[in-house]
């Protein structure tokens, strides 16, 4: 029986964070570019996801840890 889900949760979140596509800067003034409104709305929705917020907190803490480790 699983009594401590922490390792699984942590690993799943780490994997999701690694597999997340990196944001690439897009040309804004092109005819073939994606519609601006839809993009911003989707991004806003994504930020509202609790798991995404948790991932951002983890990233911040991990950066701090790296700073401490590297001196």
């Amino acid at each position, binding site marked *: 029986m699983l009594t*401590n*889900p*922490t*390792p699984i*949760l*942590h*690993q799943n*979140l780490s994997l999701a964070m690694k597999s997340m596509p990196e944001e690439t800067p897009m040309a804004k003034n092109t005819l073939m570019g994606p519609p601006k409104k839809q993009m911003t709305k989707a991004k806003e929705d994504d930020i509202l996801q*609790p*798991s995404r*917020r*948790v991932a951002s*907190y*983890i990233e911040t*803490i*991990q950066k*701090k*840890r790296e700073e*401490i*480790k590297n001196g």
Partner: protein
Amino acid sequence: MADMMMQPKLDAPIPGHSLTKELGSRPWQQPAQYTTVEDALDYYIPRLESDEVSQQLLDVLEMGIPVTTVANTMQLGSVMEGKHSVDVGMLILPVLVELIMLIADSAGVEYTTGLEKDKKIRGSLVDVAVAQFKEEQEKDDTVDKEGSEPMLAQMKEEAEKRTGLMVRGK
């Protein structure tokens, strides 16, 4: 292991025990105090940063208790106190793990993460495991010696008793 499985669990609650109290009389049956991840973290972070708690936390980590176990115990305790729901607890668990590791790193304390991918095992834990293995091996050796000698004598006796056409010639 098999003996442990066979023993009755006498300290377990009897079926229906949870229904003997009025609904809502327990803290976890009330609406949670902190309903979002941010609210829950605002509750945890000042506590973890306080001198009293951080010192106890570092002591626990130095004893070799994994970070994941400590984090899970903390969130489970808060769920029981009605501070936040189980869902919020699951969401903040990875953040708690990272926070505890941050505190331990900044204090320069060695710790076990408890994550599966973590291959680094502390020396003291290896010593405990080796001692346990040796004990078990010694037990097995004594049982084998005690058990094998009478069995061999019995087999020899039976072989000598056998008669008939198909008995192997001596």
